[in-house]
Structure formats: structure tokens, C-alpha cells
């Protein structure tokens, strides 16, 4: 067997890309856990096991070599991205359902890694948000409540028990709260986007910048998305009477803005692939998310914004394909 060129040792691999994403998520997960307790790590473990299980079954059913493809970490990445968006004390079966929709429906039924038109994590999230709106908006407030311990967390997630002092879980995200309140959002850390959330957001920013630095993601996507949100927020601050919208920084640091910019919109499979297209694609997500945030019925709109732009990505690609060398 004659071997032709190219001969070289490749320095990129799908599994490495995925492992880098997991690594970049880690600081945010640690800080998240520090603020809100064991909910997130428990959910992550649950979702990881479930995702790998679904992945293995689907690969087997599709007749693909399980060992080769399960080692690409793509299912774990989808599961982690999904869980990070969910309230940490969600009942276990809801998490399982979301992972099922993400891995089985959104990913494998559309042809598996590389072929899914919709972001699997956002499909799982959207399914829960539409089906269980009450549970999906029960976030742990940091003030006035004791963060549940490990045992308590397990009891809530798996036992369905409602621990007495958590009875009145906050049903409003900070965004929801500010949207309907008349008080101005104070511009200091800790109260800007809801206690704890700015620090977590900054961790996403750090992890995301590292991914951009290592070329794991295309910097155009987060930059375009954040610019769009920022410009929209400045316009809102200038043009709106709502005191909650007066500080543009609020929109960048609260809700899922940074997380979506660096970890959700950058999923290469479902994003636009051309350079010009990525500017447009991410700007579209930022714009739609802000429209939903400000005028829509949901407190935050990144999931739907991402899914809508996923739908537009092939057309954006087609329209923004570069002019080949030597062509007019």
C-alpha cells in the first residue's frame, strides 16, 4: 500500500475541542457551586451519565462504532451546557427528559454529531421551559434562605421532597424581577444581576476568552453578540423610561448573556460557518434575545433566539460564502 502525502501529525482533534470546552466551563461551575450549593454538581453528574447512556444506545441503534464516537465528548458537552441553564434543584426526571430531547431527538435523530440543525442543549432547555414553566423559573435566591446541604439537595432532586425553609423558592429571576419592578438597578457587584450571578458571568467570560485564545471558538461570534446586546442596551437606556433598563451593563452581565455568547452561540455545528456569516448569525441572536427579554413573555430569550438563528444559518452561509480566488 503506497502512502501519499499529506504526512504530518495533526494538532487538532474533535475530542480535544470538546475537552477544552469542558475545561473552560469549570471555573464557572466551581463558583456557581460555591454560591448555590450542591444542586449543579449533582445535576451535572446525573446528566453526564444520562447523556453517555443515550449516546451509546443511539450509536448502537445507528450502527456506529460506539467506542470511537463516545470518546469525542460531544454528548457530555451538550449535557453540561444544558444543565448549567437549568435551575439547580429541578426534579431528576425533568433533567433526564431534557437530556433525552437534547441527545436523542435533537442530535441523533437528525444524523448525529455534525448534522443536527438545532443546538441540542437549547432544544432540551426549550422543551422544559415550554412544558414546565413554573419549575423552570424556581431559582435559589441568595438572600433570606439557607443554601441546602448535600443530603437535602439529593432529597429535593431525587425524592421530590420540599424542604420547609425552601418552600418559597424565588420564582423570579433577577431579569424578571427588574423587568416588573420600578426600582433602579444599582450598579454595583452583587446587586446588579442578582447576587452571585455577576461572578459566575465573569467566570464564563474568562473561560470563553481562553477558548477564543486557543482558537477553539471563533471570536467573531461572542464579539458580535455582545456588541449587539450592548448597543441595544444603550439604546434602551436612552430611549426607555423603565428605571430597570438604565444601566446597559445589566444586560451584559445578567441572565445568560455571557454564557450564551461564549458557549451556546459558538456551537460550530449549528452556527453559520463563514466569517461574515458568523457576524450576522451572532448579531441576530443578540437582537432576538433582547427583543424577547424586553417585550416578550419570557424573562430571558437566548434559547429561542439561538434556535431561530440555527434555522437561518444555512441561508446565511449560502448568502455570505466568500468569493473564490480568481472569480469576479
Amino acid at each position, binding site marked *: 500500500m503506497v502512502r*501519499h*502525502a499529506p504526512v504530518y501529525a*495533526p494538532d487538532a*482533534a*474533535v475530542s480535544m*475541542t470538546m475537552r477544552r470546552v469542558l475545561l473552560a466551563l469549570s471555573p464557572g461551575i466551581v463558583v456557581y457551586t460555591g454560591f448555590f450549593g450542591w444542586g449543579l454538581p449533582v445535576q451535572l453528574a446525573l446528566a453526564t451519565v444520562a447523556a453517555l447512556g443515550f449516546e451509546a444506545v443511539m450509536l448502537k441503534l445507528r450502527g456506529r462504532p460506539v467506542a470511537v464516537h463516545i470518546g469525542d465528548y460531544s454528548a457530555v458537552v451538550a449535557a453540561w451546557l444544558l444543565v448549567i441553564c437549568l435551575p439547580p434543584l429541578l426534579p431528576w426526571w425533568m433533567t433526564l427528559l431534557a437530556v433525552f430531547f437534547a441527545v436523542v431527538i435533537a442530535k441523533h435523530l437528525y444524523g448525529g454529531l455534525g448534522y443536527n440543525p438545532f443546538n441540542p442543549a437549547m432544544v432540551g432547555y426549550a422543551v422544559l421551559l415550554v412544558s414546565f414553566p413554573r419549575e423552570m423559573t424556581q431559582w435559589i435566591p441568595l438572600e433570606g434562605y439557607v443554601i441546602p446541604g448535600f443530603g437535602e439537595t439529593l432529597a429535593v432532586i431525587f425524592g421530590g421532597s420540599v424542604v420547609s425553609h425552601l418552600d418559597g423558592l424565588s420564582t423570579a429571576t433577577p431579569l424578571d424581577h427588574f423587568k416588573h419592578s420600578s426600582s433602579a438597578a444599582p450598579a454595583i457587584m452583587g446587586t446588579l444581576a442578582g447576587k452571585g450571578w455577576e461572578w459566575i458571568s465573569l467566570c464564563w467570560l474568562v473561560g470563553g476568552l481562553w477558548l477564543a485564545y486557543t482558537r477553539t471558538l471563533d471570536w467573531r461570534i461572542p464579539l458580535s453578540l455582545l456588541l449587539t446586546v450592548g448597543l441595544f442596551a444603550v439604546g434602551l437606556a436612552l430611549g426607555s423610561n423603565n428605571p430597570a433598563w438604565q444601566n446597559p451593563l445589566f444586560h451584559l452581565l445578567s441572565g445568560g448573556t455571557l454564557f450564551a455568547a461564549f458557549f451556546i452561540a459558538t456551537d460550530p455545528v449549528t452556527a453559520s*460557518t463563514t466569517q461574515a456569516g458568523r457576524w450576522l448569525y451572532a448579531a441576530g441572536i443578540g437582537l432576538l434575545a433582547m427583543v424577547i427579554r424586553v417585550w416578550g413573555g419570557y424573562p430571558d430569550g437566548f434559547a429561542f433566539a439561538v434556535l431561530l438563528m440555527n434555522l437561518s444559518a444555512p441561508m446565511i452561509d449560502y448568502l455570505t460564502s466568500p468569493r473564490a480566488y480568481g472569480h469576479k
Partner: protein
Amino acid sequence: MTAMLTSGIVVNGYRDMATRLPVARVPVCSELVLPLQQHIGTPAEPVVGSGDRVVRGQLIARARGFVSAGLHAPVNAVVLGIECRPVPHPSGLNGLCLVLAAEDGADWGSAGPEVVDPNSIAIPEPDIIRMMVRQAGIVGLGGATFPTSVKIKSGMSQPVDTLIINGCDCEPWISCDEMLLRERPGQVLAGCHLLRQSLAADRCVLAVEDDAPEMVAGLQQVIADCNSPVRLEVLPARYPSGSEKQLIHIITGKEVPSQGLPVDVGAAVYNAGTAAAVYQAVVHEVPLISRLVSVSGPGIGRPRVVEALLGTPVSELLRFCGGRTADANGLIMGGAMMGLGLASDEIPVTKGMNSILVTTPAMSQDAQGEMPCIRCGECARVCPARLAPQQLLSLIRNGDLEQAQQRWALEDCIECGCCNAVCPSHIPLAGYYRYAKGEIRKQGKARVKAQQARQRYEFRMERIERAKREREEKLRKKKEALQAANKARARAAMAEEARSFEDEM
């Protein structure tokens, strides 16, 4: 601002491997094998026969047709015959070769002066230069092997403002241009003058890459010393800066139109080795009988650039360079990105053989199996032809070659392999494109064939129809004539009868 390639990739060129030892000549071998097809175009036609005695530099096969190149005897020798022998070709098939037996004591001959003052050489008329280049059998020595005289001719018919001499060793592991420019810069500069004169080019640029500092410093010195009008352009090392179309864009800022030629944008590119060969042919009247070959890679004992007579077996080059190491596992003609795998080392050095790369398993040890495309877009970012590699891949996999060709410019792929190198899914993208281009050509040929068959069929049917018509016509005429004759006879008979009746009356 420095001109540079903005796409492509930064790769380790391994420039320090084959450049530690000076260029050396491989001793004359007892048997030399010269394929009749060592260039793009029509194969050369032998003008000597079995048993003929030939002397060094004698024409042994002449160019046939316009796009072709002749062959010359590398040493004093006796023609053994014209035989089918293994040749460096992707098909792995044998090709017709002139086989020579070197005479006892045949040698390289005296080496021409290595140091020349490029400004002092006499420069003949453009047509004379072109004719001498044609008679010397010179082809593009960068690997493309297009007959140089034909290229000069096309440059004469349209104005050329920029002559570019390509001194970038285009792929990793290849060092023959670097060693040439280090050891014989005067020859290259003299060749630049001759080519520039023949094309009446306004300016001449010598392009090299910055990963060979010793060569760059030497060239700057030589150009300053002889006050040469050649402009040295030192490009940041980036693959594939040495690709013709890309180099033209870097130097002139112009893009060669798709399916067009460099002269369409007033540019002409010649390899540095070709320029030196032009100098040898025009000034010393030495035809192309040898070339520099870079013998490199982790699998060779003493990597170096050698000068080898055309027709010398590759095995001899390997032996001269210290032989293969124990873990050597393959031979590649050309570079690590685009080279052609060789099944055996029993093939001859040809005009286009710029490099022999001896590979080891370590060179590609991390290569895993192919994974699904995750649409990361890295391939599009590095593509020097600005194609959409992903779209092409999915179209080719789905068999939609027409769309790949018409909407996504498949034919403009230069097969540089940058997409392969950056693909995290390790998809052999360039291989898919090469396959698809071949398939499109095949389909085109089949279409032409089908059309010809249809025309033949239609013509035949028409001919049969015509013959039938003619036959019927003839028959009809005959019948009419017969009928007319019958009628006439009947009439005559009746008249006769009437007459006889009248007579009876």
C-alpha cells in the same frame, strides 16, 4: 507593510534538515533510464535507436508538437533500447523510457563556473533565448514541469510587467531552492536577466521565505554587490506562499482569473531552478541533464540536497545519502503536503523530481480515524483559494458534483492540503476534491464520447435513410421509365394494329 499570504497555515518547514551539508553530485550510474514523458504535454519522440552511441548533451528524443520538451543524453553512453519501465506517476503504471548504458569512465564533465557576474553576461534577442531554452529541453523545475519555452511564448504574446522568480521551497522538507540560492545565486540572477529580457518585463522580483536566514542574508549581499535590478522579496514563511497563483497575489495584489493564466494579469512566475537552467542553456549551451533533488525526512541517514543526472535511480540517491533508517516506512516524491507516494525506489530521477521524502511512522503517529465534520470552519479560514471546503465535502459525498463545480468553484482547488492539516475531524478533504475533480473530468470525457457516438449513430441513420431514399428514387425512375416504355410499346402496338387493320381494310 510586508506582503504576505493571509490564508494558509504556518508549518514547520524542516529547513534545517537537508541544508547542513553542501550540495553534492551523485556519481554516474551504469544505467540511466529517461522516461519520454517528463513534462506536461506530448511525450518526446526518440531520435536514437538501440546500439547508438551518444555523447553528453546530445539530443536523444525531440519535442513532438508545440507543448513538449526534448531529452538529452546526461553522459556519454550507448543506447540499450526503448523499454517500458516504472516511472514516477500516480497510476503506478510503467512508461516508455530510453535506457542508456553509461560508458566506462563517463563523468559529469567540468562544472561550469558557480560564481558569475549576472550583469556581465551577453543577452541575446528574446526569440533566440526562447529557441535555446526549447532546444535545451527546459521545463518548470518547481515540480509542475510545464515546458518553459511555451511559457515564454505566452509571455511574449501579452505584456508582462512583473516577472516573479519563485525561490520559496513550496512544501515542508523541500530544500533544493534554498540550497541553489545559497550556493549558486549568480546563476539564478543571470537567469532572471535572461527571462526578463525574453519577456520584456518591467521588473523582476525574487521571492523567498524568511525561514532560511542564511540564504536571505547571502542573497541580499549578492544583490547589493552586483547592483542587481532584481528586487528581493522576503515573505513570512507560510504554506503555500510558493503556489503560483498565491505568489502572484502576494507580490502584485492581483488575482489570476479562474481558468486563466498568469499573463492575464501581466505576471509570469518561474522557479529559481528553472532560471538557473535557462542561464546554463543560453550562456553555456548546456541542456537540462541534471537537477537538484532534496533528499530529506526522518527516515534517511544523511539528509542533504544532491545534484543528480536525469535517469539516475532513486535507490542510488538514497544510498548516496546514507541509506534508509530502520524505521523508514515510505517514500514520497515531493513534499509532505502534496507529494506522490512511490511504490519502489527503482524509479529514475526526472525533470520534475524536486524532492524525495523518506517517511517514518512518527511523522503521522497521532492521526486518528475520520470523525464527522463539526463545521468548525477552520478549513475555510485557511483555504488559499477561498473555497467553502465543507460545502464541497457534503456535495461530493452526496454525489452532486455539478453543484460543487458550478456554484462552489471546485475546479479552483489547488489541492494544497491546508484543509486536511487543520481539520479536527481528520477528514482527508483534499483527497475528496482530487477525486471529485478527476470524476468530473471523466464525466466530461464520457459526455463527449456519448455525443460522438450519438453523432455517429445519427449520421449512420441518415446515411441509411439517404441510401434508401436514393434507392427508391432510382427504383421509381426505373419503374417510370419501364412504364413509359411499356406504354410506348403498347401505343406502338396499338398503332401497329390499327395500321394493319387499316391495311386490311
